């Protein structure tokens, strides 16, 4: 018994343009249909009374909830406050993380001096530090921003430092042969070589910054989406809580997407994704 293995052009080879266009459409359709399906099941479970619709309000009940919050302006106000806080905190933390990460990635001495201490700080839950920040900066934006910045800082710092250290010797030696100085080594070798990994860290940090935001707003309960969620819970306005949660999720998604797109702008040389696996 023998088998003949034939290799012929597949659909992708015969109709490359159509295949690519079809995949783009499929990708978007899949991305949308999963959350739509989720909402449908959620709605269904309330309609069929699998769960108590009072404790677990269905999506249809969120619409009047949004309308009410929209009318008295609280929705916009909370969203604006939260977005402002998260963006300021993220930028502050990401920039310091990038700077310190590169400095430590490039200097053995700095690493030896500060790495153990920094790791110790990293493991401290930042929410535990909230009372200290509240006494320093008072209730309000500053405390929230600084706390988000601290959280983001550690994620970015770690990913930048390890990305810089992982840059292969061959790349560094080639630059040394061209007599690059420290700045040139950074500019032409370490920064671009580390960028893909850095952007992974930046995306993770984007998600974490939103988590942190809601956590802080829960605890200090002054303004923002976290406050809206918390207030909804205590006053049993569960629709309000759910609206807040959905908004937070949307903001987190958009934020990570934004970081990804910015990354793509900087990283032109690498292919989007590597899809070769056994099918």
């Amino acid at each position, binding site marked *: 018994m023998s088998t003949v293995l034939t290799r012929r052009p597949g659909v992708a080879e015969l109709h490359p343009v159509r295949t690519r266009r079809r995949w783009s459409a499929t990708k978007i359709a899949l991305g949308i249909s999963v959350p739509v399906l989720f909402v449908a099941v959620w709605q269904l479970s309330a309609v069929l009374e699998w769960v108590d619709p009072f404790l677990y309000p269905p999506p249809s009940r969120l619409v009047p909830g949004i309308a009410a919050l929209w009318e008295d302006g609280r929705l916009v106000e909370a969203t604006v406050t939260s977005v402002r806080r998260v963006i300021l905190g993220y930028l502050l933390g990401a920039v310091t993380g990038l700077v310190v990460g590169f400095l430590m990635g490039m200097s053995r001495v700095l690493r030896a001096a500060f790495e153990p201490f920094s790791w110790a700080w990293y493991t401290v839950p930042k929410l535990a530090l909230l009372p200290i920040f509240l006494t320093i900066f008072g209730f309000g934006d500053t405390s929230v921003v600084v706390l988000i910045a601290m959280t983001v800082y550690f994620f970015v710092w770690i990913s930048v430092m390890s990305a810089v250290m992982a840059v292969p010797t061959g790349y560094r030696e080639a630059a040394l*042969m061209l007599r690059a100085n420290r700045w040139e080594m950074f500019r*032409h070798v370490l920064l671009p070589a580390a960028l893909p990994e850095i952007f992974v860290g930046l995306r993770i940090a984007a998600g974490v910054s939103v988590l942190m935001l809601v956590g802080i707003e829960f605890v200090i309960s002054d303004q923002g989406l976290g406050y809206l969620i918390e207030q909804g819970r205590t006053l049993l306005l569960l629709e309000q809580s759910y609206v807040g949660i959905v908004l937070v999720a949307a903001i987190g998604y958009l934020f990570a997407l934004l970081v990804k797109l910015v990354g793509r702008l900087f990283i032109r*040389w690498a292919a989007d994704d590597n899809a070769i696996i056994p099918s």
Partner: protein
Amino acid sequence: MDHIGQLTPSGAPGEGPPAAPRITVREASRSFVTTGRSAVHALGPVDLSIGDDEFLCVVGPSGCGKSTLLKIIAGLLAPSAGEVAIEVSGDHRIPIAMVFQDYGIYPWKTVRANVELGLRLSGRPTADRREIVDDWLARLGLTDFADVYPGALSGGMRQRVSIARALAIDPEVLLMDEPFAALDAQLREVLQDELLAIWQARRRTVVFVTHSLEEALLLGDRVVVMSARPGRVIADIHVPFERPRSSAIRTDALFAKLRGELWTSLHSEVVAQFDAGKDRP
């Protein structure tokens, strides 16, 4: 970081046999201490004197320390003992260029930007740079790929980018570590001819590491054979073919004879190096 600057010009030239040596290697050896294992004695002691504008080829079994020797000359690695002296004129910002075994070109730079990098770092004006880079891209057949990222190139093309980058800075000393090893036989011959023509038009001191005896005989003024690890010089052959040469000398009877001589001195070392790598009970 800057080891290259620490290589002071040799104080006493003229002790080697030919004209004033450009590179003098005295009793240089190198060991590596790896964590958990005892030190690996990788190289030497090696004594070697390389003349000005000489094309020296180095052959030796895999793992005998050829790359290590080249890196010591390059200033990327310090010798554990002994010293290396290199004469440089002092007015060239990048006197020594190196073509690496594994390319060392940057995937995040286009072909043009890769070739241009040395010139850019040495502060050449943009117009100058463009002209020089265009010239080298054309000579190495890369003109059509100037604005492509290396990811989209074949292995042979990547290696040509690496060679163009080294040659574009017009160095006084050129170090090449198996630059053609990853190429197919035909492309390899094309690039050998190309390098031969380039070098004969504009002589430089070249240290060229290769596994191919033919390549060494075709390109080199001299061929040095190294022993199994720790690599020492066990044969030093003068290649008598007239310059300018072409690949036609491959069919010369003397070529075959020299190749045979080189192989004889190398053979037992290759076997020794191979056996040393086996796990023995």
